[in-house]
């Protein structure tokens, strides 16, 4: 119920998206600097990294930084899709369960203990199932008018059950090396998962800011009635964002889960919470129309380094238990900062 004044996500977005009265008096660049959460998150991230680096310089070792990026690459990929979903004022909380289901499918198809299918074919099947489930979400939300929180909550439960049925409580082992390469291998010294994440993030940024489709996504999220009157089809655009998210979950599964030598039935649990949290910390508004890919990536990194930071601060093993408390506090701080900065959502 909070469709109030929503600030435009990027300076050149169409008139539908800009509804703040002050926006005309301040030049575009300055406004985008002030209005965006990205800078706050970037500063917080920089401060955290600097503080940890001072306490324990080992944090800045390339191997450690690479680990942080590899661990967060799948989340960044999924979060890019969820950003688009949240920009259209919908939500997708089924991504974690979908990743779990796709992991199980991937394992069952490729493992030497099970189907032992051709890896390329198996990857295609995983991507196809991911896209298909995303499309089901999209059809139910856009064409059947079921609220997205209900659709994806139902999917969250149903897909988790399907995963457990498929895996029957066992772990899947003996994944072929060519599949493991996606998660553990490197091309020219850069891990495959980081390369994939970077490529998809850049593609998503181009989609968001440089294509008509991107503009339309923001327009639908800012004001669905105006978008419809302007001749856009909110249904098709919503179907697209959910399908795209399903596809990205497939990619994230391929490059993220394959770094483990076994697939356990709990993979993907609570991913949706982490991803939605990161997107919101990155500045996207749950009431739609606002949010950027770069903000989301910064949000993923900020929440994702909490665990590593706690380890490197060497304040004792027991401190790592506080990871989730600190992640939760980050969101509350972010929304409180918005409130104090006078940017009420209502």
């Amino acid at each position, binding site marked *: *119920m*909070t*469709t109030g004044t929503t600030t435009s996500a990027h300076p050149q977005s169409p008139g539908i998206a800009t509804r703040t009265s002050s926006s005309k008096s301040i030049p575009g660049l300055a406004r985008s600097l002030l209005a965006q959460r990205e800078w706050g998150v970037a500063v917080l991230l920089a401060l955290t990294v600097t503080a940890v680096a001072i306490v324990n310089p080992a944090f800045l070792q390339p191997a450690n930084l690479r680990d942080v990026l590899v661990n967060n690459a799948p989340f960044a990929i999924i979060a890019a899709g969820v950003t688009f979903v949240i920009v259209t*004022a*919908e*939500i997708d909380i089924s991504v974690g369960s979908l990743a779990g289901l796709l992991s199980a499918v991937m394992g069952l198809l490729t493992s030497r203990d099970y189907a032992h299918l051709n890896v390329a074919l198996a990857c295609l099947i995983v991507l196809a199932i991911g896209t298909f489930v995303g499309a089901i979400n999209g059809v*139910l939300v856009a064409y*059947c*008018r*079921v*609220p*997205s*929180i*209900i*659709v994806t*909550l*139902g*999917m*969250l*439960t*149903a*897909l*988790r*059950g*399907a995963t*457990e*049925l498929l895996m029957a409580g066992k772990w899947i082992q003996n994944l072929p090396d060519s599949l493991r390469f996606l998660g553990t291998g490197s091309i020219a010294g850069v891990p495959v998962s980081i390369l994939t994440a970077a490529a998809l993030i850049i593609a998503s940024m181009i989609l968001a800011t440089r294509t008509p489709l991107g503009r339309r996504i923001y327009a639908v999220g800012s004001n*669905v*009635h105006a978008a419809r009157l302007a001749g856009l089809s909110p249904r098709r655009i919503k179907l697209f964002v959910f399908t795209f998210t399903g596809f990205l979950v497939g990619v994230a599964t391929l490059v993220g889960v394959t770094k483990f030598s076994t697939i356990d039935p709990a993979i993907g649990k609570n991913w949706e*919470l982490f991803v*939605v*949290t990161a997107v*919101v910390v990155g500045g996207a508004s*749950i*009431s*739609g129309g606002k949010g950027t890919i770069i903000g989301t990536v910064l949000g993923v990194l900020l929440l994702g380094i909490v665990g590593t930071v706690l380890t490197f601060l060497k304040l004792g093993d*027991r401190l790592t*238990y*506080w*990871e*989730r*408390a*600190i*992640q*939760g*506090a980050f*969101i*509350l701080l972010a*929304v*409180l900062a*918005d*409130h104090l900065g006078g940017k*009420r*959502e*209502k």
Partner: protein
Amino acid sequence: MTDASDDTLAAPRRRFLENGFLFWHEFVLVALLAGLLIYAARVEPVFTRTKTQLNLSTHIWELAILALPMTLIIITSGIDLSVGSTMALCAVVLGMSFRAGTPIALACVFAAITGLGCGVLNGIFIACVRVHPLIVTLATLSAYRGLAEGISHGEAISRFPPAFTQISGNLAGLPIPGLLFALFALVTAIALGKTPTGRAIYAMGFNETACRFSGIATNKIKLILYTLAGLAASLTAILFAARRNTANAAVGDGMELDVITAVVLGGTSIFGGRGRVIGTILGVLLIHETREFVSWHWQNDVLIQVVVGVLLILSVLLNTLLTPRGRE
């Protein structure tokens, strides 16, 4: 998530259709429940005996008690994702203070105060800072569970005194948590259906701005509702600890989704303005009976997740297909 403020013109017509449908929704739930129980009685006669049902009912009360404040919150078009985490934090506070030598009664009071605090914090962020409930409670879902993990270091506390574990036992042949639930359900139903506050709760779900302009203290109502949810979570934490004789940071994991599923299955609209206590009770019962029957008959409770998920989507799909367009 959506703005319902601009389609109030069609309200009388829609309200008629929705009210008509609301009864129908509950009728469908009763029919499904009856169908399930008749089938169960034929295949597994022992399952439908009163004694079996009473024994199995120990699993239902925590879900049922949490579903009551959640119904009210969802009717105001809010949501509370933090109930499971609040349960965990309360259980850990209960356990840790008991282990530190506090009398168990006082430990329960501490747990209740913790639940109250958690609810008030949610309420303040939602009502006063005016952040979307989904965001606030998503944050506190992590934060409260994190606090529970931090305080307990992931350890479990057990060996509570027998006087405490009897809370989850029977009184005159009836389960004490069930009696508590019946009392709360009655109070909630009366408050929602027969008091001005109840009308205000429905009205807030339809159009909050109009409510504020009509002089309804929407902030106060929100603060109270989220506080009640926190208190209910602390009560369920105490009941859980008594039933299982253990308290740890994993208590209530995923509980929020079960509760929301039950409430929405019971016919409460996620957009607010619509819902009833009786529907919620039927939703809880339907999920409970399906779950127990499947694990009784097939010794397999995995399939049921698929069924519950699909049931949830289908029930709301039916709901939206039968109501006229609008509210987008």
